[in-house]
């Protein structure tokens, strides 16, 4: 303590003094003994300060839970973490729900599957621009369903929103064919894209590329199927997928519907490679998202912890190639804590807007955020 008049508050606000009072030890005893010998007149004040500290500590610590409350809390927590452990094995991907804290919990469980990565490398057959599997895809599309094609001729990622709420971030020089409205969730990709698929176990989502079909329930993953004869890669970020080799003779749909047939189910942190020569899928290990050419969105964790909202929007803008318009005077100082990995673009926006008490509208590649609570 500094040399001063040593009033009561000096002692009360001195961390060393407090530590001595609450946890005396020989070193501190010696120090304060010496102090009192030098200032014998301070003895009553020191005694008073001791009383204050002990009493304030005692009085501010009067709201401990009872043993019964502790037991209840422990049981509640254990019940929930057990449930969560069980859920996790069945549904690795869960959609946003609208309960008060539900989405936060959901986000937390999704965060567990961050960095789950697996990949399949597929050496494709050298084929024409419109490969056989595409023609087959078109041919097998049910009558009455109009196919739409989105091409990304820009040099930035382009987000395609599908009718089931799933989103696809299409990379430059890539194109995606998909039905206007889904009867069966099937799309055809040429090029490179990152998929975030709405979970719907009764309607599996199929991505066809030249040579392979990728079947998923709800998950996020990357497919790289170059037009040239380079290998096709499938990299899954969250959830689980099955990859099937497509042979000329058999229908892709029959294949995909029959998981026993030459399909390879890939689990977290696994990858696979297809060798055209040996005609078989081989498991690989190692992260597929660390390669430099990997898309921004595939690497992005979407894990926000007290992140300023402008930064959150900036992350979304970069990942989805959109422009987000919002009132910076209202939301500029807000922060967001949420883990949004694996969720489709709509769901991400819904979670963000729910947290901010705002609304969103998508028009082309522009997202407009309205409303929201002003943050200080």
């Amino acid at each position: 303590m500094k040399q001063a008049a040593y009033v009561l508050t000096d002692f009360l606000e001195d961390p060393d003094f407090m530590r001595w009072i609450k946890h005396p030890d020989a070193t501190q005893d010696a120090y304060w003994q010496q102090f009192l010998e030098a200032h014998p007149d301070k003895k009553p004040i020191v005694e008073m300060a001791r009383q204050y500290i002990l009493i304030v500590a005692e009085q501010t610590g009067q709201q401990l839970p009872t043993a019964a409350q502790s037991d209840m809390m422990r049981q509640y927590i254990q019940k929930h973490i057990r449930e969560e452990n069980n859920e996790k094995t069945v549904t690795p991907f869960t959609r946003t729900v609208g309960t008060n804290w539900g989405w936060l919990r959901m986000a937390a469980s999704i965060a567990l599957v961050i960095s789950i990565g697996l990949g399949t490398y597929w050496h494709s057959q050298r084929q024409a621009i419109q490969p056989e599997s595409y023609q087959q895809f078109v041919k097998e599309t049910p009558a009455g369903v109009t196919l739409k094609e989105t091409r990304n001729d820009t040099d930035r990622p382009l987000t395609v929103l599908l009718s089931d709420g799933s989103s696809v971030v299409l990379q430059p020089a890539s194109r995606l064919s998909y039905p206007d409205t889904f009867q069966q969730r099937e799309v055809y990709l040429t090029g490179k894209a990152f998929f975030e698929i709405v979970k719907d176990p009764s309607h599996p989502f199929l991505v066809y590329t030249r040579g392979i079909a990728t079947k998923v329930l709800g998950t996020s993953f990357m497919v790289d199927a170059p037009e040239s004869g380079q290998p096709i890669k499938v990299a899954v970020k969250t959830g689980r997928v099955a990859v099937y080799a497509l042979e000329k003779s058999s229908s892709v749909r029959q294949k995909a519907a029959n998981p026993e047939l030459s399909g390879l189910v890939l689990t977290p942190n696994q990858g696979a490679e297809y060798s055209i020569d040996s005609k078989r899928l081989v498991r690989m290990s190692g992260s597929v998202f660390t390669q430099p050419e990997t898309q921004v969105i595939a690497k992005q964790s979407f894990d926000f912890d007290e992140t300023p909202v402008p930064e959150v929007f900036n992350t979304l803008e970069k990942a989805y190639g959109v422009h987000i318009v919002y009132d910076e005077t209202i939301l500029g100082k807000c922060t967001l804590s949420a883990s949004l990995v694996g969720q489709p673009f709509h769901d991400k926006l819904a979670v963000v807007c729910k947290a901010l008490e705002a609304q969103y509208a998508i028009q082309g590649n522009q997202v407009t955020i309205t409303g929201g609570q002003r943050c200080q």
Partner: protein
Amino acid sequence: MASLPSSRNNYTDQQLWRGLREGDESAFTAIFDRYHRTLYNYGNKLFSDSALVEDAVQEVFIDVWRMRATLSEEIISIKFYLYRSLRRRIHRMQGKYQSGGTIEELVDDDSTPTSNTEETTQIEQESRDLLSRRIQELLTHLPKRQVEALTLYYYDEFSISEIAQLMDVNEKSVRNFIHRAITSLRQNRNWLIGSLLIFWLLCSL
């Protein structure tokens, strides 16, 4: 589950944290047992509805478990981590019921501590009981943030810099909260003794 001994009482925070990150449920339970009581006590300084505080404490621990895979490898203080999580959670909750702090609390931030000129060196004869009752009474009248700072400092024994980070203010403000609270406790002493005396006189009439 890792095959660690069943008694975790002597484990360091770092050991428990490592166990938690590896998905060891008994390490998680040990963390809960070690910290939930004081955490709950702290929560009650932030929010007066103890049922909601109980919910918030539960959610904090459930989140810790769910986020275990993404938690940082090294932790300086699990206690600090838990307190910060609880405070953020309760503040988000509060946002739904009220907006912002009271003016009185906001003023505290920048005002300088009042110098304590009337400090006396007289021997205070107050009994510990009386002092205890008086402080208990006065704590209910102090602004919430002063009580929060007092709790974190005297009961939970966080450092001023930790309290500043928890409360989202600078260290000077934390010192002000504590100083003002203590000054109030001191200044109200005579008034309270006086009123107790009057009360006693009235009763004895």
